[in-house]
């Protein structure tokens, strides 16, 4: 048994580990409606190569959708950031992530919207309130 490791210097703010606290979590919109899950995170100001001491990389977006297949079955990440939700619209981080905007207009919601509009909504009763 070696000596316990030292604690890192304190920094302001809440400490989160991306995989433990963010990845695969549910994303809700401003009304509490499920939008998607966090399938990946986009990190800004961080590239492959030598790392300049000055840079302070941050999370710039949540990514969901096609990227999930890469995580499941391997292979290269698809080009073009389909299913990107800018970090600036994130309004709360708990055991779920909450957005500060309605989810309906987001790119990740188009299939749900299309299906609701053109298939499920067309079936009689599809737009009725549940009661």
């Amino acid at each position, binding site marked *: 048994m070696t000596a316990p490791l030292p604690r890192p210097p304190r920094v302001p703010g809440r400490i989160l580990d991306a995989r433990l606290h963010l990845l695969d979590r549910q994303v809700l919109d401003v009304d509490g409606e*499920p939008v998607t899950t966090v399938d990946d995170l986009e990190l800004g100001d961080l590239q492959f190569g030598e790392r300049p001491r000055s840079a302070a990389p941050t999370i710039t977006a949540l990514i969901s959708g096609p990227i999930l297949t890469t995580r499941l079955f391997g292979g290269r990440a698809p080009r073009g950031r389909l299913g990107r939700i800018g970090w600036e619209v994130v309004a709360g981080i708990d055991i779920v992530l909450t957005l500060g905007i309605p989810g309906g207009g987001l790119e990740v919601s188009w299939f749900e919207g299309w299906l*609701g509009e053109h298939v*499920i909504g067309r079936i009689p009763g*599809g737009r009725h309130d549940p009661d």
Partner: protein
Amino acid sequence: MKAVLGLALGVLTAIGGFVDIGDLVTSSVVGSRFGLTLVWVIVVGVVGICLFAQMSGRVAAVSGRATFEIIRERLGARVGFANLAASFLINLMTLTAEVGGIALSLQLASGLQPVLWIPVAAIAVWLVIWRVKFSVLENVTGLLGLALVVFAVAVFLLHPDWAALGSQLALRPPPQSSESAVTYWYFAIALFGSAMTPYEVFFFSSGAIEEHWTPKDLGQSRVNVLVGFPLGGLLSISIAVTAAVVLLPQMIAVTSLSQVLLPVAQAGGTIAVIIALLGFVAATFGAALETTLSSGYSLAQYFGWSWGKFRRPAQAARFHLTMIIGLLIGLGVLLTGADPVQITEYSVVFSAIALPLTYLPILIVANDHEYMGDRVNGRLTNLLGLVFLVIILIASIAAIPLMILSAAGS
């Protein structure tokens, strides 16, 4: 007064909703082949389902997270997906068996071929999911399922030799039973899987969210589970006893749903048969609703789609589409002429194999302060949880070798 009524309704629903095609078939098969020597497994299974249904309900009420969201969060995308694939397939198999069970029950009531009833059953299931309120569908099928109490009454009407039954309970097999040890343990696992099916947990935790449970509702849910499920388990045991009293001495090993009914006819005649058939239809219909919903729940929760009957269908479009596709697949399989009873016999064993996939994540999250605050598991719950985890793991690992050795219990 209203509170008492609510409590009674919840308990009655839990009793009536406990039995499904898996319990009907497996209990009867086991009773007709092993007498009461496997009844202890039903008792173990009921304790297990009480423990885990209660735990998953508590996690859902406190954290607002349903089971498959948790599975993905705690297992990661990849392992979570493998879990989803396995759970979804087994759930689909159970769904097929339940819809087939509705058709077989209606055949028993009408004499018409099940091929005619299968589409009717599938459409009826979809219509109810499409239009009927969650609490209504849960309560009505649960209350009608209480008709299965006729099996408990039948036990007494048959005037069994209680001493002989008692000695079977003490694991002394009746003289007519000549089953090998391998077959005995194979059916022990099948019976365990029929009492503790994964879909019950998906349904229970998602139902808690459908009904907007808060930690305040936990008391009621605890009573429902801790009183309702054991009484439901008594119905399973009654089914096994009637088969053990009537069919076993005549060496009729149960292979079809019609045979499950014969002891009731002998005990109570036509009226008892009609009541039992009502119970069959309600139990299989209720379970068909639960498994269909569970197929939507599990997929939607893994991928983060909006789900639930408390939303307009158009606002949970992918959830509803999943359920429609699930029902169509089940319908397709049944129309090829597959025997629902055989599907059931396999589905309960595969349920037992898949149990650890559902139970371990729930046990872990029920201890996680990030999700549960100070409502984490107590020491006793954890002790029981660990004991059951060991049982579940053993059953899961032993299932396939036993299935091969016993040629699936033939």
